[in-house]
Structures are given as C-alpha cells and as structure tokens.
C-alpha cells in the first residue's frame, strides 16, 4: 500500500436511482469542503423519474472534483469511478481515465444486473478482461453490509439502504478523511430513528475499516487543503444561489418579492427554495401555466412588488407576449431562464446555452430587454442581484440566464455579508408629486414609478403605444418613433451603470482572446490557466452583461488577432458580436447536452494560437 499526495482528484459516484448516490456525493463534498479543499460538483440524474432498476436509463451519478489548487469545474476525466452495479459501470466507464481506479460492488454484477444492463448471456466485464487498463477494487457491498448488520433488527430492504454508507466509508479511507461530519449528519437526519442511525453509522465505519484492513485497495491519497481566500465558506448550488439573490434583492430594495412560476426542469428548484422562505415575505405562486406566471408577476410589479418569473426555454417561448407588455409598461420584472437542451422539449435534464437569441429577440416589435448571465453556481447570487438592480433602477424587464449545469452544480462559496451587498434604489416618485407624469424620464431615461395607493397619482398604463410623458394612448407617427428609440436608448444607457469588461486571465496583448458567457466559465478558466502556465499568449474575458454589452467591449476585443467564442449551442453570442462589431470572431460549439471539457477548449486554443 502506498500513500501519495495529489493535487486534485475527480471521483464519479454512480448507481441505481434508488442507491442513494446523490447523498453519498454530497456527504463526500461536505467533508472535503470542511477539510479545506476547493471543489466543484455536478449531479447527473436520469431523465426518467425512476427508471427500472438495474438499467442504463436508471443510473444516477454524482461527480466531484476537489483539490489543493483552485478548482473551476467538476473535472473532465475521472480518477475514480465508484459503481454500485454493472449498468453504472457501463454508462460511465467512458468518463474514467486510463489507469484510473474503479471501486465496484460485485453484487451488482449478477446475472440479472448483467441482463438488465444489456449484456449478452456470456458477457461480463468482471471476467472478460475489459477492465484490464484500470485498477479495480471489487467488493460485495450488499453482503458486507448485511453481515455487519446481522444483529440489527431492521428489514432486509432497510439494511440494504445502508449500502451507500459502506462505499462512502471506503472512499473516506482512500482519501484519508474523517467520518465525523457524516456521522454528525446522520445523527441529525435520523434522530428519531435510532436503529437506522445505528445501522448507517455502523456500515459507514465498516466500509472505512474494510478499506483499512483488506488488501484490495492498494493506495491511499492525501489531498491537502487549498490555498483559498480566508473567510467563511458554504457550499452552494446555482438554483439555490439564484433564490437567495432574489431574496437579497428584495431586502436591498425594500420591495416584497413576488415569484410567479410554473414548474419545469431545471428551474423548479428555485420555486421549491423560495417557497420555504415565506418569513422573508416571499410570495411564491405556482401558476396554472407560464403565461399566468409572468402575467401575475407583472401584476405584482404593477402593485409595487419585485415581480419575478422563472422557467426554462419552452416556458420562455410562452412568455414572449407578456414580456413585451412589461417592456411597454416599463416595470421591473425578472425573467429567469434556467436553460436546458432544446429545441422543443429537447433534452430536459441536460444543459445547453441555446436560448440567448430567444432572450434577445423572442418578442414582437422592437423590444430590447437587458440580458444578464451567470457563470458559476455561486455567481448566480451576484448576477441575480445585479439583474434585479437593473430591473428596478432602470424600470425594465431583465432576462437572467442560468443553465442546467450551474443550476445543479455546486461549489464552495465565500458568501457575503448583507451589509456588503449593493443597495438598490427604487425610482419611486414622491407621494406628494403633484405634476407626476407616468412617462416622464430622468437622464437615465427612466420613468418615475407611482403605485396604487399613492393618492393623486392615479394613472393608466397599457400595451398600446404611449404618448411621451403622459403615457396616454397615441397613434401619432412621430411619437411612435420617438418612443421606440427612447426605449432602446434607455436600455443602451444601462451600459453607463455596469462595470467595464475585465479580463479574467491573460493580458490585453495576447494572441488569442477567449470570449464567452455563462456556464462555460469553469472549463475555459481551467484551460486558459494551464495554457498561461505553459507560456501561451491567451486571454479570457467572460461576459456577465450581454445586453447592453459593457462599453469597453469593442475596444477590448479589437486588440486581439483572434477571438474565439466557445458556446454550448450552435453559435449565438457570436452572432451578437459579429453583428455589433463586424468582427470575424471564431465559433466553437458543442451541442451535446453536456459542458465543455477544459482540454477541448485547450486544444482549440492551441490550434488557433499556433496558427491553423
């Protein structure tokens, strides 16, 4: 047995939907975090709710990358694959790097499982040498679990439910981790079921001890704490961060949060999260459909709340008309799109960035709406808060784009203190404003807001073209042009209230600039960091603000010979850049429902750098 110190490890836990894989993964995550590793995680759910046991379709997975260096993605290739059955192995072996470790439950490789996973009668990866390139640790987890619980008075089914603890214990041993955090967790979770607590704890320890004593595991690894900024951290998932961003915006602006939504994967968790926080005066409303959801949010905004609606692409396709109304009304409104694989119903449980042009143009008439995007799970918090600030301070609907990858991914978060958050100034008119005009504008071109309850400020708004200043209906030609241009200019002027674009890495004189947005951040960051270390002349700029673009963006990108735009779509940001700056940027597209790997980006940059 060896003991090595490694910088970074990627583990993939996989098993049947019922095997408790997500719990195993998140326990390992929390322990790694407490230990001071940097990390990034991503769950991989099956598309079906609970596909038949043992089948490929039923495999649930959880990937974690943790290390003593900075970690920006859940990792490309895995170092370790933990599988509870043969289907899990078959579905995920491609993730494992050659020479990687496999920890497997032999009990999941019996005849039935082999058949369910689609193996022919005489095939078995355990015996046909197909795993020869890997370091395999086999153990009959079911048997071992049952054995260690032989004197516990639980049913077999309940005992078997502890199997995941055995594997977790095993992996803890491999990475030299204490069981303490998980035992604490179990105590809390099962505090009313002492026998279940006892069983789980026992099996966890058994797995640990099994690894310690048996011969099958040949190495043990140490992953030292990362040098991270000092402070207090927590783990955060993207959708959670979005929910918190919304609550923070409500607090910072003093407007009650109204959240109108219709469930849809992968946005529903924001609704679930917000519904828990009614003590923040959050009004969460599960509407009858997406149109009602956005409409109700508009109604709430009209009443003086912060109206927010969230959905995924197909839902946005339904909200277009109402967003146009909000745009005409010039009321604050946030439309969250947690993007997923499209088009149409597409790949609902997979990730994609293909709704950007829909956010930009998916409405009738000239109706430009600011578009803000988030790049990592924790960034969802700040980006959401920022989207709300813009919506409120500039009296406009704002699109906030997230996606399935960051929505469900998690990372450590050096969470802020409320006192350090940006404040949001609501452009509410004075109660006693006697010459209030609903469509009179300040120098940001923002109209003043008056809401029901403000005596003397009664007025009507609507979707017909409005007369400048008064907001009365106007069919006048000149007024229409003025209003269209003014509304567009209002959105353009937001550029004065957002920071200039900065480089995330690299210099302003590099050969290749990688320009991107959204959840490609981690992979690009990793790639560019490695390339810089290797001496390549490359830079990385990552956009949060897509409409309007930061004011310096044009001059920033014009400085580079080559601008590479990687996207998880067929080329959308690149259309905006080419149109706006007439710059022949270079697309890089992956449309597979999965994120870029850092090495893919890296290879492409090298190709470009060394001159195709």
């Amino acid at each position, binding site marked *: 047995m060896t003991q090595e110190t490694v910088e970074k490890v990627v583990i993939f836990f996989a098993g049947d939907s019922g095997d408790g894989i997500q719990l195993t993964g998140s326990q390992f995550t*929390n322990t790694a*975090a407490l230990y001071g590793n940097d990390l990034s995680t991503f769950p991989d759910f099956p598309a079906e709710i609970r596909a038949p046991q043992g089948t490929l379709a039923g495999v649930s997975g959880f990937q974690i990358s943790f290390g003593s260096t900075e970690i920006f993605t859940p990792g490309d290739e895995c170092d370790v694959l933990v599988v509870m059955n043969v289907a899990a192995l078959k579905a995920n072996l491609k993730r494992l790097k050659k020479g990687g470790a496999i920890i497997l439950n032999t009990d999941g490789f019996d005849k039935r499982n082999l058949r369910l996973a689609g193996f022919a009668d005489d095939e078995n990866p355990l015996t046909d040498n197909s795993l020869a390139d890997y370091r395999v640790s086999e153990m009959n987890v079911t048997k071992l679990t049952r054995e260690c619980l032989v004197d516990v008075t639980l049913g077999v089914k309940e005992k078997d439910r502890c199997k995941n603890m055995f594997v977790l214990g095993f992996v803890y041993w491999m990475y030299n981790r204490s069981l303490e955090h998980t035992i604490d967790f179990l105590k809390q979770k099962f505090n009313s079921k002492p026998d279940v607590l006892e069983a789980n704890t026992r099996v966890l320890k058994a797995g640990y001890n099994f690894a310690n004593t048996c011969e099958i595991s040949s190495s043990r690894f140490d992953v030292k*704490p990362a040098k*991270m900024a*000092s*402070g*207090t*951290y*927590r783990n*955060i998932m993207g959708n959670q961060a979005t929910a*918190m961003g919304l*609550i*923070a915006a409500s*607090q910072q602006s003093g407007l009650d949060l*109204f959240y*109108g939504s219709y469930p849809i994967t992968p946005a529903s968790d924001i609704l679930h999260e917000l519904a828990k*926080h*009614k*003590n*923040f*005066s959050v*009004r969460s*409303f599960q*509407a*009858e*459909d997406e*149109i*009602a959801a956005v*409409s*109700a949010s*508009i*109604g*709430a905004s*009209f*009443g*003086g*709340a912060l*109206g927010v609606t969230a959905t995924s692409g197909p839902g946005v396709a339904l909200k277009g*008309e*109402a967003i*146009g*109304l909000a745009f005409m*009304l010039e009321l604050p409104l946030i439309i969250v799109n947690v993007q997923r694989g499209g088009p149409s119903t597409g790949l609902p449980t997979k990730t994609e960035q293909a709704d950007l042009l829909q956010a930009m143009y998916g409405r009738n008439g000239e109706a430009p709406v600011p578009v803000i995007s988030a790049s990592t799970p924790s960034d969802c918090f700040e980006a959401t808060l920022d989207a709300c600030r813009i919506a409120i301070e500039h009296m406009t609907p704002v699109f906030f784009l997230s996606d399935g990858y960051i929505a469900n991914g998690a990372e450590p978060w050096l*969470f802020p*203190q*409320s006192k350090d958050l940006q404040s949001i100034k609501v452009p509410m008119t004075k109660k006693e404003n006697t010459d209030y005009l609903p469509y009179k504008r300040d120098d940001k071109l923002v109209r003043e807001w008056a809401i*029901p*309850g*403000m*005596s*003397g*400020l*009664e*007025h*009507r*708004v*609507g*979707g017909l073209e409005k007369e400048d200043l008064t907001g*009365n*209906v106007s069919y006048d030609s000149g007024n229409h042009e003025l209003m269209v241009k003014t509304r567009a200019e209002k959105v353009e002027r937001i550029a004065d209230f957002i920071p200039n674009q900065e480089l995330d890495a690299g210099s302003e004189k590099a050969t290749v600039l990688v320009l991107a947005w959204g959840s490609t951040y981690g992979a690009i960051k990793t790639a560019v960091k490695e390339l810089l270390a290797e001496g390549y002349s490359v830079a990385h700029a990552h956009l949060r603000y897509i409409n309007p673009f930061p004011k310096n963006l044009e001059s920033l990108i014009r400085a580079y010979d080559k601008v590479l735009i990687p996207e998880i779509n067929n080329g959308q940001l690149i259309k905006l850049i080419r149109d706006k700056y007439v710059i022949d940027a270079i697309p890089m597209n992956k449309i597979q429902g999965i994120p870029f790997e850092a090495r893919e980006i890296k290879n492409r940059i090298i190709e470009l750098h060394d001159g195709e």
Partner: protein
Amino acid sequence: MENKVYTAKDFSSDQEVRWCPGCGDYSILKQVQSVMPEINVPKEDIVFISGIGCSSRFPYYMETFGMHSIHGRATAIASGLKAARPDLSVWIITGDGDSLSIGGNHLIHLLRRNFDTNVLLFNNQIYGLTKGQYSPTSEKGKKTKSTPMGSIDHPFNPLALCMGADATFIARTMDRDPKHMREMLMRSNNHKGTSLLEIYQNCNVFNDGAFFGMTDKATKMNQTLFLEHGQPLVFGENKDKGIRLDGFKPIIVSLEDCSIDELWIHNEKDRVKAGLLTRFFDADFPRPFGVFYSEDRPTYEDALVQQIDDAMQQKGQGNLDDLLKGSNTWTID
C-alpha cells in the same frame, strides 16, 4: 384614512371615450363610475385591469389606477396584483372573447383560487374590436365574417362554466338596466372572493339586437326573470307567471293556476338550483338576471398572508445573513 366624498365625476378620466356611438359599453362605464363613490374605497386604492377588446378600453376612462393589458391575461395579472397587494380593490374588465376564448384558462383558475376581485364580463356574443367574428358565446349557426356559412361551435354557457370551476359568486345583468346593474355591481363589490358578473352588452355595430327580446319593451317582461334571494321566481308582463320545480325540471306556470307558495324560491346559497338557473337558455324560458349563487370560501390572498404570518411566527422575520450562511459552513484563515 380620512374618507373623501366622491362623485361619479371623480372617476371619469380625461381621456375621450371612443366606443362606437350607441355601444352598450357607455352605459356600463356610467354605472361603474356612479357606483364607485359608494364602495367606500379611496380612489387610489382601486385598480381596473383589462385585457384586449372594445370592452377592455374601459380602464382608460376610469380615474383610478389601471392597466390595459394583453388579450386574455387580465385575470392572471389581477391575481398577481391581488396576491401582492391584498389591500386594493381590484376590478377586472373583460369581453366574451377575452375571458372565454383566449383567457378561458386563467378565468377558471381565478375562480377556483377565489382571489377577492370583481370580474365584469362584457358579453356581446361577438368579437367587437377585430370587427365581427363569432365568439365562444355566439349561438350556433351564426353568420359572421369568419363563419360565412354559420358557426358550427356549440357555445359556452358562461355561468355554467363558472359554476363548474367552483366560482363563489355568479351574477348576470345587462347594459340596458342601469339600476339593476348598479345593484349587481354593489353585490359584486361586497362579495369577498371572486365575483363574476356577466353583463349582456349590445354591440350595435357587429351584433346589434343580440339581447333585443330582453330589452325591448314589448317582450322584456316575458323574457327576463329577476332573481331575488328568498323570493319566488315570478315574471311576466303583470308578474303573472312563475317557475315551479317538478323534481329537477323547472316548468313555467301561470299564477292563475298555481299558488305563489308552490313556486321555486330563489336561494343564492343553493349550488344545485343555481346550476339549474344557468341552464335557462331556451327560447321559451325567461333569462335570469341577478345573483345566481354566492358562497363563502376563504380567499387565496388571505391564506397566503396567513402563511407568511405563520412563517414569521415560527421562524421569525427572515434574516438575510442567516440565509446566506446556511447551516453548514467552514472557515479558512
């Protein structure tokens, strides 16, 4: 809050009213403006939300807060407004196309949720604003621009549909009976929960005379039946006819042959009888006007506020720092 004394004029905005001359909408506007001073709500706490249609121009003419929104969505918008601002008096203005065609779903969901709002459904049995196509309340066989050979759609019975959606308040009135309309507006206002008031409204340009029999002097007494809680169903030129129930079957009787005691006594609280009344649609039956049904059921917004209060009670007012921190943190120095 000091109570201002308003007059109808206080509720008239400075916008020129632009319906066709002779349109039934004028009368409804007038009655609504005249009822507003009586509902005892400060002007600034009143909101009119409409969809799209001739009728939906209504809010522009009311000197209150208002929104002329998009087609079919006024009910959904009002739901959000009421959820955010239970303190407001919210009125929804909609047409038969707006509420029953494109907006059908939001209407039935509004009704089941029972937000305390007042829906005024201007039923002219036609699409006015788009210049004369049939609507979901147009009678079968109707020839319109889109149905030159006659409509083949079985029409909705709006009140029956609303009963099916578990509405808590259902009533009907008409443009030509200002007094009755005012009464119904007050009743709608007073009902806690969603009040659905169907208003028969003549579109004199595209569907003139749709309700002629019910408004024409010569026929109206025989073709209308005014419902009053606790009162027998009596109608006719000389109040000489009544409705009796034979099992579940309503029959018209002459009061010469039948004592008033045997008549069907209207009971707003009786859902089954209200259902029967919504089915009075045949030519030989008088059309009922008045409150068909009224039920007490908690409103959505009250339950919502209750949950917020309970949550505050249980967990204390939300603290952002606690939320940000969560339950699981670690510190790196």
